């Protein structure tokens, strides 16, 4: 067992963990932040994507013990985030979710696209979404929702 201190959704957390505990399992099982979902546990499907130090990362292949000092933000920590709020409204309006399993991570990735690539067109949005699988929607609603938020932010 190893000690680790990190910040989760703005709150300092100190824990004693088995080194093999993934960051995703740490968040889900220890911190009860179940909005982060496990889809493949090998870094492909993207359902576990969260923010580590502000950048999207797979929490299934990161280990909690290696996150000493890290600033972790999950979907639960984006409740009051303005970009995520715009995305939530757009996702609902464009029917960008069905079963909801990929949705939290999809929002994390979408937020990164909106902030990092404010001029992304449809093709670029699709390429940036390649690392987040959705099995329900066929992606059209997701792409449209991101386009909608990018367009709405442009005049600002």
């Amino acid at each position: 067992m190893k000690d680790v201190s990190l910040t989760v959704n703005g709150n300092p957390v100190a824990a004693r963990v088995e080194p093999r505990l993934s960051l995703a399992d740490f968040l889900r099982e220890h911190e009860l932040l179940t909005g982060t979902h496990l889809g493949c546990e090998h870094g492909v499907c993207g359902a576990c994507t969260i923010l580590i130090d502000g950048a999207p990362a797979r929490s299934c292949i990161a280990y909690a013990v290696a996150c000493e000092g890290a600033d972790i933000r999950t979907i639960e920590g984006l409740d009051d985030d303005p970009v995520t709020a715009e995305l939530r409204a757009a996702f609902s309006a464009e029917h960008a979710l069905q079963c909801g399993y990929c949705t939290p991570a999809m929002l994390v990735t979408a937020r990164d696209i909106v902030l990092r690539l404010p001029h992304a067109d449809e093709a670029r949005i699709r390429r940036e979404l390649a690392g987040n699988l959705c099995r329900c929607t066929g992606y059209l609603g997701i792409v449209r929702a991101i386009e909608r938020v990018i367009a709405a932010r442009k005049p600002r």
Partner: protein
Amino acid sequence: MVMRQNVADGGVGIGARLPRKEDARFLRGRGEFVADIRLPGLLEIAFARSPLAHARIRGIEKPVGREGDVFTHADLTDVRPIRAVAGLPGFKPSAQGVLASEKVRHVGELVAMCLAATRAEAEDLAAATFIEFDELPVVADVRAACRPGAPLVHEEWGDNLLLETVAEGDLAELARTAPVKVSRSLKTARQCMSPLEGRGVVAQWREREGQLVLHSASQMPHIVRTGLAECLGLDEGRVRVISPDVGGGFGYKGILLPEEVCAAWAAMRLGRPVRWIEDRREQLTANANCREHHYELTAYADRDGRLLGLDCEAMVDAGAYSSYPFSAALEPAQVASILPGPYRFDHYRCRSLAVATNKPPILPYRGVARAGVCYAIEVLLDAVARAVGKEPYEVRLLNLVPPEAMPFDNITKKHFDSGDYPESVRRAVAAIGLDGIRARQAQRDLTGERIGVGFAVYNEQGAHGTSVYYGWGIPMVPGHEQASARLTPDGGLELRVGVHSHGQGLETSLAQVAHEVLGIAPAKVSLVHGDTALTPYSTGTWGSRCAVMAGGAVAAACRALGERAKKIGARLLQTDYASVRLAAGEIVGPAGSVGLAEIARVWYRAPQNLPDDVDPGGLDVTIGYKPQRDTGTFSYACHAALVSVDSEIGAVELIDYVVVEDGGRLINPMIVDGQILGGAAQGIGTALYEEMPFDAEGQPLASTLADYCLPGATEVPAIRILHMQTPSPYTEFGQKGIGESGAIGPPAAIACAVNDALKDLGVEIGELPITPRRILAALDEAERGGR
């Protein structure tokens, strides 16, 4: 969340694109999936699974010092095997022990259950459980399985033939006389349905209720309850099954799993809650697959391309066991009954074999056998079109059941309810721009561009009921679908249904149905679903049935509730029942009106104001529903795909994709579009990407999502949907089942388009998925004069 303002037409009832009520919780990560459920003292389960496809178990050594945490078949002596029989003649039943006893029959079969405080530790125990095997010869291919002397998956059968279905017909005369005769061999791959969330179960024995409470990621909690009770020898009243939020189903979650039975047993034996959460490797390599079809087809036609007859030998690789409740019979028997598709012709013969192999069992995946048969017949019709020198769409128009023939009983006695099939083709031809495409193709020598267009027409039987399923003789026959409607004391509405919503948006669309009948705002309607203790019995969510069956049931329950409210309302308005009506959430009389909320208030909180002869059933109604005919609705569609094939690297790009769809009257068009888009994305996976290959030893060769390729945002184009809305004459609002439809067309449309793009090279691809490797191999063969 306020949603009304987004609805363009101002309505929130049937036909409104109402944003979904369920979105709010998912968008904040507050859905509750089975892996999110926490119970004190929870133990985690991992399974030791067979590494071999076919072997006799000689012995199992539990990890030293942890013997008490590992359970084998020898411990579960009081558990009955899972048996999913079918009543079809000749069907050979199999018994699937929940933990393997003498023999394992596929890689990944459960051998030992290991429990520990964490999943990691349980996996350590599984890794330390030593199983000694005597290897047996493996049968991993349907053709090999049918050869005399083939290894037997179930010795007691005497062969590997699980079921033979024959649609009898005499084509001998046609074979001699038909002017046009076209034959093809076609194959579709084994697939994994791959919902993003896997299966999972949390089981707990609750002493106070004397009940086993099982949370399971299931599409059919009531069926799981029945199956569990049978396996565990419990009264059904001792079992409660709850489907929480479920991360996609697609058929994968329409099964009673041996893992569920094991977990339930462990919870009772240990007196502690336990859980098993399927991981992706288990899903890919150990649990059920779908859709491996082999076809030998011959079409007979006249010189115009009019179909005279169809002859088919089909084989379905059914895997090692028959799954509960659908059984291994559904898919192969369906092949024979639905191969004729939406076409009219006079002579048909089809023999379909279901063959057992040392692979995981199969389950009906979205569209069930339709994706395969649609691919088969549409590729065949393209070949007919080529043989008679016509456009493929012209041959379709010639053979489709025309609108004036509706309703129509086809050659396999399917009763097509309504629609204008040819019109869907004409619209698709126009929308994809066929003339422009042909002009572009004519420029190929100048541009080097290799494009192709393909069309696929099909119809989909949905919401088929008692008469159809009674015929299959499987453990589950849907009857009347029931719903409960209950006014709350403050005038809200609670609906209870036994189906389960896992992406279909029923919390919204059924609220729209209720609104249509009672006028209560959808925001004030709550849906309880997927809990056997709280909802009426239902076979669950499958077969594109919820909009028709649960929609019809909710409407019926709301109507009956409205009648009760009218009686009370008439009294409160001091008038007689005959002179009041229900409108916009109020009971309206000649001289005034009273709202449902006031009626609810009186019933619950001021009963002194009720008449003596009030209906004691109150404002809580459960009622059952069946459509006027239970042979199913037939939605239909024409898909058109425009592809570009890069013949140097074998890549296929989808340039454009059009779906012309007729789902009857649409309850929520936004949700219907979502179902079509998502289904089509899965169909694109079937067409181009998804394949679970096995080697000759029955070892699955794709154990991660890096090997099993699911379509992403760059593989699915911006599909265009055009709606036709021909009501079904038999359903409550004219709606038809539509949930599976999108997945059916793409393999056929894309295969036809690829073949169109390659036709000048004399190359046709006869196997799904159409991978670069298959295209290059076909080109290689053509170059070397193989064709």
